[in-house]
Protein backbone atom coordinates (compact mmCIF):
# COMPACT_ATOMS: atom_id res chain seq x y z
CA UNK A 1 0.00 0.00 0.00
CA UNK A 2 1.45 3.41 -0.92
CA UNK A 3 2.64 5.66 1.87
CA UNK A 4 0.12 8.40 1.15
CA UNK A 5 -2.74 5.93 1.39
CA UNK A 6 -1.55 4.70 4.79
CA UNK A 7 -1.28 8.32 5.89
CA UNK A 8 -4.79 9.04 4.64
CA UNK A 9 -6.25 6.05 6.52
CA UNK A 10 -4.47 7.01 9.76
CA UNK A 11 -5.53 10.68 9.40
CA UNK A 12 -9.16 9.76 8.76
CA UNK A 13 -9.25 7.49 11.75
CA UNK A 14 -7.46 10.03 13.93
CA UNK A 15 -10.05 12.69 13.11
CA UNK A 16 -13.03 10.43 13.71
CA UNK A 17 -11.53 9.19 16.97
CA UNK A 18 -10.38 12.61 18.18
CA UNK A 19 -13.78 14.28 17.79
CA UNK A 20 -15.20 11.68 20.14
CA UNK A 21 -12.56 12.12 22.80
CA UNK A 22 -13.74 14.15 25.77
CA UNK A 23 -10.64 16.28 25.90
CA UNK A 24 -10.87 17.32 22.23
CA UNK A 25 -14.63 17.91 22.49
CA UNK A 26 -14.27 20.09 25.59
CA UNK A 27 -11.40 22.08 24.10
CA UNK A 28 -13.29 22.63 20.84
CA UNK A 29 -16.37 23.79 22.72
CA UNK A 30 -14.21 26.18 24.76
CA UNK A 31 -12.54 27.48 21.62
CA UNK A 32 -15.87 28.11 19.88
CA UNK A 33 -17.31 29.59 23.07
CA UNK A 34 -14.28 31.87 23.32
CA UNK A 35 -14.79 33.15 19.79
CA UNK A 36 -18.52 33.66 20.31
CA UNK A 37 -18.05 35.36 23.68
CA UNK A 38 -15.38 37.67 22.30
CA UNK A 39 -17.60 38.75 19.41
CA UNK A 40 -20.52 39.23 21.78
CA UNK A 41 -18.35 41.21 24.18
CA UNK A 42 -17.02 43.37 21.35
CA UNK A 43 -20.56 44.17 20.23
CA UNK A 44 -21.53 45.03 23.82
CA UNK A 45 -18.62 47.44 24.04
CA UNK A 46 -19.60 48.95 20.68
CA UNK A 47 -23.16 49.44 21.83
CA UNK A 48 -22.10 51.11 25.06
CA UNK A 49 -19.64 53.31 23.17
CA UNK A 50 -22.23 54.36 20.66
CA UNK A 51 -24.79 55.01 23.38
CA UNK A 52 -22.27 57.16 25.19
CA UNK A 53 -21.50 59.13 22.02
CA UNK A 54 -25.20 59.59 21.28
CA UNK A 55 -25.81 60.84 24.84
CA UNK A 56 -22.85 63.20 24.62
CA UNK A 57 -24.08 64.59 21.30
CA UNK A 58 -27.65 64.71 22.56
CA UNK A 59 -28.99 62.66 19.67
CA UNK A 60 -31.18 59.58 19.70
CA UNK A 61 -29.17 56.36 20.09
CA UNK A 62 -29.39 53.72 17.37
CA UNK A 63 -30.99 50.44 18.36
CA UNK A 64 -28.21 48.41 16.75
CA UNK A 65 -24.46 48.75 17.21
CA UNK A 66 -21.86 49.14 14.50
CA UNK A 67 -22.85 52.21 12.53
CA UNK A 68 -20.48 54.53 14.41
CA UNK A 69 -17.69 51.97 14.22
CA UNK A 70 -18.11 51.65 10.47
CA UNK A 71 -17.89 55.42 10.13
CA UNK A 72 -14.92 55.54 12.49
CA UNK A 73 -13.21 52.69 10.62
CA UNK A 74 -13.41 54.66 7.37
CA UNK A 75 -12.31 58.03 8.81
CA UNK A 76 -8.87 59.42 7.98
CA UNK A 77 -7.85 60.24 11.61
CA UNK A 78 -8.52 56.62 12.68
CA UNK A 79 -6.51 55.28 9.74
CA UNK A 80 -3.61 57.55 10.63
CA UNK A 81 -3.82 56.40 14.24
CA UNK A 82 -3.83 52.73 13.23
CA UNK A 83 -0.82 53.25 10.95
CA UNK A 84 1.15 54.78 13.77
CA UNK A 85 0.03 51.95 16.10
CA UNK A 86 0.97 49.15 13.73
CA UNK A 87 4.07 50.93 12.51
CA UNK A 88 3.62 49.69 8.97
CA UNK A 89 1.40 51.51 6.50
CA UNK A 90 0.75 48.46 4.31
CA UNK A 91 -0.22 46.24 7.25
CA UNK A 92 -2.50 48.97 8.59
CA UNK A 93 -4.16 49.36 5.20
CA UNK A 94 -4.59 45.58 5.02
CA UNK A 95 -6.20 45.54 8.45
CA UNK A 96 -8.54 48.35 7.50
CA UNK A 97 -9.81 46.36 4.55
CA UNK A 98 -11.15 43.73 6.99
CA UNK A 99 -14.52 44.31 8.66
CA UNK A 100 -13.87 45.12 12.35
CA UNK A 101 -15.99 42.26 13.63
CA UNK A 102 -14.00 39.80 11.50
CA UNK A 103 -10.79 41.38 12.73
CA UNK A 104 -11.81 40.70 16.31
CA UNK A 105 -12.64 37.12 15.37
CA UNK A 106 -9.24 36.76 13.65
CA UNK A 107 -7.40 38.09 16.68
CA UNK A 108 -9.16 35.67 19.01
CA UNK A 109 -8.71 32.74 16.62
CA UNK A 110 -4.99 33.42 16.17
CA UNK A 111 -4.34 34.02 19.84
CA UNK A 112 -6.02 30.92 21.19
CA UNK A 113 -5.42 28.35 18.47
CA UNK A 114 -1.98 27.32 19.81
CA UNK A 115 -3.59 26.71 23.20
CA UNK A 116 -6.28 24.54 21.59
CA UNK A 117 -3.61 22.54 19.78
CA UNK A 118 -1.35 22.14 22.81
CA UNK A 119 -4.18 21.00 25.04
CA UNK A 120 -5.41 18.36 22.59
CA UNK A 121 -2.71 17.08 20.24
CA UNK A 122 0.19 16.04 22.51
CA UNK A 123 -2.14 14.12 24.79
CA UNK A 124 -3.78 12.27 21.89
CA UNK A 125 -0.48 11.15 20.41
CA UNK A 126 1.32 10.36 23.68
CA UNK A 127 -1.69 8.44 24.98
CA UNK A 128 -1.60 6.17 21.96
CA UNK A 129 2.08 5.46 22.57
CA UNK A 130 1.65 5.11 26.34
CA UNK A 131 -1.38 2.81 26.22
CA UNK A 132 0.30 0.60 23.66
CA UNK A 133 -2.43 1.19 21.07
CA UNK A 134 0.31 2.16 18.63
CA UNK A 135 1.56 -1.45 18.81
CA UNK A 136 -1.51 -2.56 16.89
CA UNK A 137 -0.70 -0.05 14.14
CA UNK A 138 3.08 -0.27 13.82
CA UNK A 139 3.05 -3.77 12.28
CA UNK A 140 0.51 -2.57 9.73
CA UNK A 141 1.98 0.68 8.44
CA UNK A 142 5.21 2.62 8.40
CA UNK A 143 5.96 4.78 11.42
CA UNK A 144 6.37 7.79 9.15
CA UNK A 145 2.85 7.26 7.76
CA UNK A 146 1.52 7.03 11.32
CA UNK A 147 3.28 10.25 12.28
CA UNK A 148 2.13 12.09 9.14
CA UNK A 149 -1.38 10.74 9.64
CA UNK A 150 -1.45 12.10 13.18
CA UNK A 151 -0.36 15.54 11.95
CA UNK A 152 -2.96 15.47 9.19
CA UNK A 153 -5.74 14.19 11.46
CA UNK A 154 -5.05 16.76 14.15
CA UNK A 155 -4.84 19.52 11.52
CA UNK A 156 -8.23 18.42 10.26
CA UNK A 157 -9.53 18.66 13.82
CA UNK A 158 -8.34 22.28 13.93
CA UNK A 159 -10.20 22.95 10.66
CA UNK A 160 -13.34 21.61 12.29
CA UNK A 161 -12.85 23.83 15.34
CA UNK A 162 -12.27 26.86 13.10
CA UNK A 163 -15.36 26.17 10.98
CA UNK A 164 -17.48 25.87 14.12
CA UNK A 165 -15.97 29.03 15.58
CA UNK A 166 -16.63 30.99 12.37
CA UNK A 167 -20.21 29.70 12.30
CA UNK A 168 -20.73 30.65 15.95
CA UNK A 169 -19.08 34.06 15.71
CA UNK A 170 -20.85 34.95 12.48
CA UNK A 171 -24.24 33.90 13.83
CA UNK A 172 -23.83 36.04 16.96
CA UNK A 173 -22.65 38.99 14.88
CA UNK A 174 -25.56 38.57 12.50
CA UNK A 175 -28.08 38.47 15.34
CA UNK A 176 -26.59 41.40 17.21
CA UNK A 177 -25.76 43.57 14.17
CA UNK A 178 -28.67 43.35 11.72
CA UNK A 179 -27.10 46.00 9.48
CA UNK A 180 -23.90 43.99 9.06
CA UNK A 181 -22.79 43.01 5.55
CA UNK A 182 -23.16 39.30 6.27
CA UNK A 183 -21.43 38.02 3.15
CA UNK A 184 -18.40 40.33 3.51
CA UNK A 185 -17.97 39.42 7.18
CA UNK A 186 -18.36 35.70 6.43
CA UNK A 187 -15.75 35.91 3.69
CA UNK A 188 -13.35 37.81 5.94
CA UNK A 189 -13.86 35.39 8.81
CA UNK A 190 -13.32 32.37 6.57
CA UNK A 191 -10.16 33.92 5.16
CA UNK A 192 -8.85 34.60 8.66
CA UNK A 193 -9.81 31.08 9.75
CA UNK A 194 -7.79 29.72 6.83
CA UNK A 195 -4.79 31.78 7.90
CA UNK A 196 -5.28 30.66 11.47
CA UNK A 197 -5.19 27.08 10.29
CA UNK A 198 -1.84 27.62 8.57
CA UNK A 199 -0.55 29.18 11.77
CA UNK A 200 -1.98 26.28 13.80
CA UNK A 201 -0.33 23.74 11.51
CA UNK A 202 3.09 24.76 12.81
CA UNK A 203 1.87 24.12 16.36
CA UNK A 204 0.31 20.79 15.40
CA UNK A 205 3.71 19.75 14.03
CA UNK A 206 5.36 20.95 17.23
CA UNK A 207 2.82 19.10 19.38
CA UNK A 208 3.17 15.84 17.44
CA UNK A 209 6.94 16.22 17.52
CA UNK A 210 6.98 16.66 21.31
CA UNK A 211 4.47 13.86 21.92
CA UNK A 212 6.62 11.31 20.11
CA UNK A 213 9.19 11.58 22.88
CA UNK A 214 6.69 10.67 25.59
CA UNK A 215 4.33 8.01 26.84
CA UNK A 216 2.43 10.11 29.36
CA UNK A 217 -0.37 12.32 27.96
CA UNK A 218 -0.08 14.76 30.87
CA UNK A 219 3.66 15.08 30.54
CA UNK A 220 3.36 15.64 26.78
CA UNK A 221 0.63 18.26 27.31
CA UNK A 222 2.70 20.06 29.93
CA UNK A 223 5.76 20.11 27.70
CA UNK A 224 3.68 21.25 24.71
CA UNK A 225 2.32 24.09 26.79
CA UNK A 226 5.78 25.04 28.02
CA UNK A 227 7.11 24.94 24.45
CA UNK A 228 4.33 27.25 23.31
CA UNK A 229 5.08 29.73 26.10
CA UNK A 230 8.84 29.61 25.50
CA UNK A 231 8.30 30.25 21.80
CA UNK A 232 6.03 33.16 22.68
CA UNK A 233 8.70 34.69 24.92
CA UNK A 234 11.37 34.10 22.28
CA UNK A 235 9.08 35.78 19.72
CA UNK A 236 8.80 38.88 21.93
CA UNK A 237 12.57 38.93 22.48
CA UNK A 238 13.13 38.67 18.71
CA UNK A 239 10.82 41.65 18.21
CA UNK A 240 12.69 43.81 20.68
CA UNK A 241 16.29 42.66 20.36
CA UNK A 242 16.65 42.17 16.60
CA UNK A 243 19.04 44.70 15.12
CA UNK A 244 22.26 45.11 13.18
CA UNK A 245 25.47 43.19 13.79
CA UNK A 246 25.35 40.28 16.21
CA UNK A 247 21.75 41.10 17.04
CA UNK A 248 20.82 39.79 13.62
CA UNK A 249 20.82 36.38 15.29
CA UNK A 250 17.37 37.29 16.60
CA UNK A 251 16.16 37.65 13.02
CA UNK A 252 17.37 34.13 12.29
CA UNK A 253 15.70 32.78 15.43
CA UNK A 254 12.51 34.53 14.40
CA UNK A 255 12.52 32.53 11.19
CA UNK A 256 12.33 29.20 13.01
CA UNK A 257 9.46 30.01 15.35
CA UNK A 258 5.81 30.27 14.27
CA UNK A 259 5.33 33.66 15.95
CA UNK A 260 7.94 35.10 13.60
CA UNK A 261 5.61 34.58 10.64
CA UNK A 262 2.34 35.55 12.25
CA UNK A 263 2.30 39.12 10.91
CA UNK A 264 2.89 37.87 7.35
CA UNK A 265 -0.48 36.16 7.52
CA UNK A 266 -2.25 39.41 8.35
CA UNK A 267 -1.05 41.04 5.16
CA UNK A 268 -2.97 40.94 1.91
CA UNK A 269 0.22 41.09 -0.15
CA UNK A 270 0.52 37.70 -1.85
CA UNK A 271 4.31 37.54 -1.53
CA UNK A 272 4.25 37.95 2.26
CA UNK A 273 1.30 35.63 2.58
CA UNK A 274 2.91 32.95 0.49
CA UNK A 275 6.23 33.12 2.28
CA UNK A 276 4.46 33.07 5.67
CA UNK A 277 2.41 30.03 4.67
CA UNK A 278 5.43 28.23 3.26
CA UNK A 279 7.51 28.90 6.36
CA UNK A 280 4.76 27.86 8.77
CA UNK A 281 3.99 24.67 6.84
CA UNK A 282 7.71 23.83 6.71
CA UNK A 283 8.13 24.57 10.41
CA UNK A 284 5.22 22.27 11.25
CA UNK A 285 6.74 19.46 9.21
CA UNK A 286 10.22 20.05 10.63
CA UNK A 287 9.02 20.02 14.24
CA UNK A 288 7.12 16.78 13.61
CA UNK A 289 10.16 15.34 11.81
CA UNK A 290 12.41 16.02 14.82
CA UNK A 291 10.05 13.93 16.96
CA UNK A 292 9.84 11.32 14.25
CA UNK A 293 13.63 10.98 14.10
CA UNK A 294 13.41 9.67 17.67
CA UNK A 295 10.12 7.80 17.28
CA UNK A 296 11.31 5.93 14.17
CA UNK A 297 13.94 4.15 16.27
CA UNK A 298 12.30 3.97 19.66
CA UNK A 299 10.81 0.85 21.20
CA UNK A 300 7.07 1.26 21.49
Amino acid at each position, binding site marked *: *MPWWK*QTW*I*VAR*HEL*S*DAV*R*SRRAAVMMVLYVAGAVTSINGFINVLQKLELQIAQTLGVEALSSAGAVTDTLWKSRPFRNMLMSLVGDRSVAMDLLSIPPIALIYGWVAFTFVPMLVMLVTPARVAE*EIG*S*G*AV*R*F*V*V*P*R*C*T*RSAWCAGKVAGQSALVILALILSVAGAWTVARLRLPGMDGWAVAQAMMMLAGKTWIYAFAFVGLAVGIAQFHRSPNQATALGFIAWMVLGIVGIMCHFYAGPGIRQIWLVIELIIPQGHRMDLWRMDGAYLLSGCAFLASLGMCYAAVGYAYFS*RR*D*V
Partner: protein
Amino acid sequence: MNLALELTGVTKSYGRRKALDGLNLRVPAGSLFGLVGSNGAGKTTAMSVVSGIVQPDGGVVDLLESGAFDPVRHAGRVTVLPQDALLPRESRVREILGFYAELQGVPPADIGPMVGRLLQTVHLADRADSAIRTLSHGMARRVTLVQAFLGDPDLVLLDEPMSGLDPREAQNARHFLASRRAGQTVVISSHNLHEIERMCDRVAVVEKGRTLLQDTMDGITGRRHVIRYRLMPASWDLAKLEARLPDMILERSPSGDALECRYRGDLATVNAVILGFLLESKVGVLQVYPGDELEHAYLNSTGVPVQPGA
Protein backbone atom coordinates in the same frame (compact mmCIF):
# COMPACT_ATOMS: atom_id res chain seq x y z
CA MET B 1 11.31 -27.48 6.13
CA ASN B 2 9.82 -24.06 5.29
CA LEU B 3 10.31 -21.66 8.12
CA ALA B 4 7.82 -18.93 8.91
CA LEU B 5 10.17 -17.40 11.41
CA GLU B 6 13.84 -17.77 12.18
CA LEU B 7 15.75 -15.89 14.85
CA THR B 8 19.50 -16.35 15.03
CA GLY B 9 21.55 -14.94 17.88
CA VAL B 10 19.13 -12.10 18.54
CA THR B 11 20.15 -9.75 21.33
CA LYS B 12 18.34 -6.91 23.03
CA SER B 13 19.21 -5.00 26.17
CA TYR B 14 17.23 -2.49 28.20
CA GLY B 15 19.97 -0.53 29.86
CA ARG B 16 22.21 -3.08 31.58
CA ARG B 17 19.61 -5.81 31.58
CA LYS B 18 19.85 -8.31 28.76
CA ALA B 19 16.33 -9.22 27.68
CA LEU B 20 17.51 -11.37 24.77
CA ASP B 21 20.96 -12.90 24.91
CA GLY B 22 21.50 -14.68 21.61
CA LEU B 23 18.02 -16.09 21.16
CA ASN B 24 17.58 -18.73 18.47
CA LEU B 25 14.17 -19.84 17.22
CA ARG B 26 13.04 -21.86 14.23
CA VAL B 27 9.31 -21.84 13.65
CA PRO B 28 8.13 -24.08 10.80
CA ALA B 29 5.42 -22.70 8.53
CA GLY B 30 1.93 -23.89 9.41
CA SER B 31 2.77 -24.81 13.01
CA LEU B 32 1.15 -23.82 16.27
CA PHE B 33 4.29 -22.87 18.12
CA GLY B 34 4.44 -22.35 21.87
CA LEU B 35 6.95 -20.05 23.50
CA VAL B 36 7.28 -20.74 27.22
CA GLY B 37 9.47 -19.33 29.93
CA SER B 38 9.41 -17.67 33.31
CA ASN B 39 8.62 -14.01 33.94
CA GLY B 40 11.25 -11.85 32.32
CA ALA B 41 12.60 -14.73 30.24
CA GLY B 42 12.38 -12.65 27.07
CA LYS B 43 9.21 -13.99 25.46
CA THR B 44 7.50 -10.63 25.09
CA THR B 45 10.69 -8.97 23.88
CA ALA B 46 11.11 -11.74 21.31
CA MET B 47 7.55 -11.17 20.05
CA SER B 48 8.11 -7.43 19.98
CA VAL B 49 11.36 -7.76 18.04
CA VAL B 50 9.71 -10.00 15.47
CA SER B 51 6.82 -7.60 14.92
CA GLY B 52 8.94 -4.46 14.70
CA ILE B 53 7.65 -2.98 17.95
CA VAL B 54 11.12 -3.22 19.48
CA GLN B 55 14.42 -2.82 17.63
CA PRO B 56 16.95 -5.60 18.26
CA ASP B 57 20.55 -4.77 19.15
CA GLY B 58 21.98 -7.63 17.13
CA GLY B 59 21.34 -10.96 15.46
CA VAL B 60 19.27 -11.93 12.48
CA VAL B 61 15.49 -12.01 12.22
CA ASP B 62 13.97 -13.64 9.18
CA LEU B 63 10.21 -13.55 8.71
CA LEU B 64 8.50 -15.61 6.05
CA GLU B 65 11.87 -16.06 4.37
CA SER B 66 11.89 -12.39 3.40
CA GLY B 67 14.17 -10.72 5.92
CA ALA B 68 13.59 -8.71 9.07
CA PHE B 69 10.27 -7.06 9.76
CA ASP B 70 9.40 -4.33 7.31
CA PRO B 71 6.00 -2.68 7.58
CA VAL B 72 5.71 -2.33 3.82
CA ARG B 73 6.92 -5.80 2.87
CA HIS B 74 5.14 -7.59 5.68
CA ALA B 75 2.00 -5.45 6.02
CA GLY B 76 -0.96 -7.78 6.26
CA ARG B 77 1.28 -10.86 6.45
CA VAL B 78 2.41 -10.52 10.07
CA THR B 79 0.16 -9.47 12.93
CA VAL B 80 0.66 -9.35 16.67
CA LEU B 81 -1.37 -9.44 19.84
CA PRO B 82 0.82 -7.50 22.27
CA GLN B 83 0.57 -8.44 25.92
CA ASP B 84 -0.38 -5.21 27.67
CA ALA B 85 -1.47 -2.96 24.84
CA LEU B 86 -4.87 -1.30 25.12
CA LEU B 87 -7.13 -0.40 22.24
CA PRO B 88 -8.09 3.27 21.83
CA ARG B 89 -10.84 3.87 24.39
CA GLU B 90 -13.14 6.02 22.31
CA SER B 91 -13.14 3.80 19.21
CA ARG B 92 -16.02 1.50 18.42
CA VAL B 93 -15.25 -2.20 18.05
CA ARG B 94 -16.29 -2.50 14.40
CA GLU B 95 -14.59 0.76 13.52
CA ILE B 96 -11.21 0.00 15.07
CA LEU B 97 -11.11 -3.46 13.53
CA GLY B 98 -12.09 -1.94 10.18
CA PHE B 99 -9.28 0.58 10.56
CA TYR B 100 -6.69 -2.12 11.19
CA ALA B 101 -8.00 -4.25 8.33
CA GLU B 102 -7.94 -1.33 5.91
CA LEU B 103 -4.44 -0.39 7.00
CA GLN B 104 -3.13 -3.86 6.29
CA GLY B 105 -4.65 -3.82 2.82
CA VAL B 106 -7.86 -5.82 3.13
CA PRO B 107 -10.17 -4.77 0.25
CA PRO B 108 -12.89 -2.42 1.62
CA ALA B 109 -15.71 -4.69 0.43
CA ASP B 110 -14.34 -7.60 2.48
CA ILE B 111 -13.79 -5.72 5.72
CA GLY B 112 -17.38 -5.67 7.03
CA PRO B 113 -18.11 -9.39 6.53
CA MET B 114 -14.66 -10.37 7.82
CA VAL B 115 -15.02 -8.31 10.99
CA GLY B 116 -18.54 -9.62 11.54
CA ARG B 117 -17.41 -13.22 11.12
CA LEU B 118 -14.48 -12.88 13.50
CA LEU B 119 -16.56 -11.08 16.13
CA GLN B 120 -19.07 -13.90 15.95
CA THR B 121 -16.27 -16.38 16.60
CA VAL B 122 -15.41 -14.69 19.89
CA HIS B 123 -19.06 -14.07 20.83
CA LEU B 124 -18.88 -10.31 20.45
CA ALA B 125 -21.13 -9.74 17.44
CA ASP B 126 -23.66 -7.94 19.63
CA ARG B 127 -20.98 -5.50 20.86
CA ALA B 128 -19.73 -4.50 17.41
CA ASP B 129 -20.98 -0.94 17.78
CA SER B 130 -19.92 -0.48 21.39
CA ALA B 131 -17.10 1.85 22.37
CA ILE B 132 -14.01 0.03 23.61
CA ARG B 133 -14.23 1.83 26.96
CA THR B 134 -17.59 0.16 27.63
CA LEU B 135 -16.17 -3.37 27.26
CA SER B 136 -14.97 -5.51 30.15
CA HIS B 137 -11.28 -6.46 30.28
CA GLY B 138 -12.02 -9.92 28.90
CA MET B 139 -14.14 -8.55 26.06
CA ALA B 140 -11.48 -6.04 25.06
CA ARG B 141 -8.96 -8.87 25.14
CA ARG B 142 -11.13 -10.84 22.71
CA VAL B 143 -11.23 -7.84 20.38
CA THR B 144 -7.44 -7.70 20.46
CA LEU B 145 -7.35 -11.40 19.67
CA VAL B 146 -9.63 -10.84 16.69
CA GLN B 147 -7.48 -8.03 15.30
CA ALA B 148 -4.56 -10.42 15.03
CA PHE B 149 -6.50 -12.60 12.59
CA LEU B 150 -7.81 -9.85 10.31
CA GLY B 151 -6.94 -10.51 6.70
CA ASP B 152 -5.70 -14.06 7.37
CA PRO B 153 -2.03 -13.14 7.91
CA ASP B 154 0.66 -15.75 7.31
CA LEU B 155 2.25 -15.30 10.72
CA VAL B 156 0.35 -14.45 13.90
CA LEU B 157 2.17 -13.63 17.14
CA LEU B 158 0.07 -13.93 20.28
CA ASP B 159 1.49 -12.80 23.60
CA GLU B 160 -0.52 -14.33 26.47
CA PRO B 161 -3.71 -14.58 24.39
CA MET B 162 -5.78 -16.23 27.11
CA SER B 163 -4.98 -13.82 29.90
CA GLY B 164 -8.15 -12.23 31.20
CA LEU B 165 -10.48 -14.66 29.44
CA ASP B 166 -13.06 -16.59 31.44
CA PRO B 167 -12.88 -20.41 31.20
CA ARG B 168 -15.64 -20.58 28.57
CA GLU B 169 -14.02 -17.98 26.36
CA ALA B 170 -10.57 -19.46 26.92
CA GLN B 171 -11.85 -22.80 25.66
CA ASN B 172 -13.51 -21.10 22.71
CA ALA B 173 -10.27 -19.29 21.92
CA ARG B 174 -8.34 -22.56 22.10
CA HIS B 175 -10.69 -24.14 19.58
CA PHE B 176 -10.40 -21.10 17.38
CA LEU B 177 -6.60 -21.23 17.49
CA ALA B 178 -6.56 -24.95 16.84
CA SER B 179 -8.73 -24.35 13.77
CA ARG B 180 -5.98 -22.13 12.29
CA ARG B 181 -3.49 -25.04 12.35
CA ALA B 182 -1.79 -25.58 8.99
CA GLY B 183 -3.49 -22.56 7.42
CA GLN B 184 -1.39 -20.06 9.35
CA THR B 185 1.67 -20.07 11.54
CA VAL B 186 0.69 -19.07 15.04
CA VAL B 187 3.26 -18.37 17.75
CA ILE B 188 1.78 -18.33 21.24
CA SER B 189 3.67 -17.06 24.23
CA SER B 190 2.23 -18.11 27.56
CA HIS B 191 2.96 -18.93 31.18
CA ASN B 192 0.16 -21.44 31.10
CA LEU B 193 1.99 -24.62 30.18
CA HIS B 194 -1.13 -26.80 30.17
CA GLU B 195 -2.62 -24.50 27.58
CA ILE B 196 0.48 -24.64 25.39
CA GLU B 197 0.63 -28.40 25.78
CA ARG B 198 -2.96 -28.80 24.66
CA MET B 199 -2.71 -26.47 21.66
CA CYS B 200 0.77 -26.45 20.22
CA ASP B 201 2.62 -28.96 18.11
CA ARG B 202 6.03 -27.39 18.66
CA VAL B 203 7.48 -25.58 21.62
CA ALA B 204 10.53 -23.61 22.70
CA VAL B 205 11.62 -22.95 26.26
CA VAL B 206 13.23 -19.56 26.76
CA GLU B 207 15.11 -18.52 29.87
CA LYS B 208 17.23 -15.43 30.45
CA GLY B 209 16.92 -14.46 26.82
CA ARG B 210 18.24 -17.77 25.52
CA THR B 211 16.62 -20.85 24.04
CA LEU B 212 16.97 -23.83 26.36
CA LEU B 213 14.90 -26.31 24.43
CA GLN B 214 13.21 -26.35 21.08
CA ASP B 215 11.45 -29.30 19.57
CA THR B 216 8.15 -30.87 18.70
CA MET B 217 5.75 -31.27 21.63
CA ASP B 218 6.17 -35.06 21.39
CA GLY B 219 9.93 -34.68 21.47
CA ILE B 220 9.99 -32.35 24.46
CA THR B 221 7.45 -34.19 26.57
CA GLY B 222 8.83 -37.61 25.61
CA ARG B 223 5.43 -38.88 24.60
CA ARG B 224 7.10 -41.64 22.59
CA HIS B 225 9.17 -43.08 25.44
CA VAL B 226 7.49 -42.18 28.72
CA ILE B 227 4.17 -43.30 30.18
CA ARG B 228 2.82 -42.02 33.47
CA TYR B 229 0.10 -43.23 35.84
CA ARG B 230 -1.82 -41.50 38.58
CA LEU B 231 -2.82 -44.03 41.20
CA MET B 232 -4.88 -44.37 44.33
CA PRO B 233 -2.40 -44.33 47.21
CA ALA B 234 -1.64 -47.95 48.08
CA SER B 235 1.25 -50.14 49.07
CA TRP B 236 2.54 -52.42 46.30
CA ASP B 237 5.81 -54.03 45.32
CA LEU B 238 7.71 -52.15 42.64
CA ALA B 239 10.35 -54.93 42.36
CA LYS B 240 7.73 -57.37 41.08
CA LEU B 241 6.75 -54.97 38.31
CA GLU B 242 10.41 -54.36 37.47
CA ALA B 243 10.85 -58.08 37.10
CA ARG B 244 8.11 -58.11 34.45
CA LEU B 245 9.65 -55.19 32.58
CA PRO B 246 13.40 -55.79 32.91
CA ASP B 247 14.55 -53.30 30.24
CA MET B 248 12.46 -50.40 31.42
CA ILE B 249 13.16 -47.72 34.00
CA LEU B 250 10.38 -47.49 36.55
CA GLU B 251 10.02 -44.80 39.14
CA ARG B 252 7.38 -44.52 41.86
CA SER B 253 6.53 -41.49 43.95
CA PRO B 254 7.26 -41.79 47.69
CA SER B 255 3.53 -41.77 48.52
CA GLY B 256 2.87 -44.44 45.90
CA ASP B 257 0.31 -42.38 44.02
CA ALA B 258 2.33 -41.94 40.81
CA LEU B 259 4.30 -44.21 38.55
CA GLU B 260 6.50 -43.29 35.63
CA CYS B 261 7.90 -45.72 33.08
CA ARG B 262 10.61 -44.93 30.54
CA TYR B 263 10.14 -47.54 27.91
CA ARG B 264 11.47 -48.75 24.59
CA GLY B 265 9.35 -50.57 22.06
CA ASP B 266 5.62 -50.74 21.78
CA LEU B 267 3.60 -48.49 24.11
CA ALA B 268 0.49 -50.71 23.99
CA THR B 269 2.41 -53.77 25.16
CA VAL B 270 4.14 -51.93 27.99
CA ASN B 271 0.86 -50.35 29.06
CA ALA B 272 -0.91 -53.69 29.05
CA VAL B 273 1.76 -55.23 31.31
CA ILE B 274 1.70 -52.33 33.77
CA LEU B 275 -2.10 -52.08 33.92
CA GLY B 276 -2.37 -55.84 34.33
CA PHE B 277 0.04 -55.78 37.25
CA LEU B 278 -1.67 -52.81 38.92
CA LEU B 279 -5.09 -54.44 38.66
CA GLU B 280 -3.70 -57.70 40.05
CA SER B 281 -2.21 -55.73 42.94
CA LYS B 282 -5.58 -54.03 43.48
CA VAL B 283 -4.15 -50.56 42.90
CA GLY B 284 -6.71 -48.07 41.66
CA VAL B 285 -5.64 -46.37 38.40
CA LEU B 286 -6.91 -42.80 38.14
CA GLN B 287 -5.17 -41.58 35.02
CA VAL B 288 -2.81 -42.79 32.32
CA TYR B 289 -1.00 -40.37 30.05
CA PRO B 290 1.91 -40.61 27.69
CA GLY B 291 4.94 -38.47 28.18
CA ASP B 292 6.02 -35.93 30.72
CA GLU B 293 3.77 -33.01 31.33
CA LEU B 294 5.21 -29.99 29.58
CA GLU B 295 5.52 -28.47 33.01
CA HIS B 296 7.91 -31.24 34.07
CA ALA B 297 9.92 -30.97 30.89
CA TYR B 298 10.09 -27.23 31.40
CA LEU B 299 11.16 -27.51 35.03
CA ASN B 300 13.74 -30.14 34.15
CA SER B 301 15.13 -27.96 31.38
CA THR B 302 15.46 -25.04 33.78
CA GLY B 303 17.27 -27.20 36.32
CA VAL B 304 14.44 -27.52 38.84
CA PRO B 305 14.16 -31.16 40.07
CA VAL B 306 10.73 -32.69 39.69
CA GLN B 307 9.44 -35.46 41.92
CA PRO B 308 7.29 -38.15 40.31
CA GLY B 309 3.67 -37.35 41.04
CA ALA B 310 4.44 -33.71 41.71
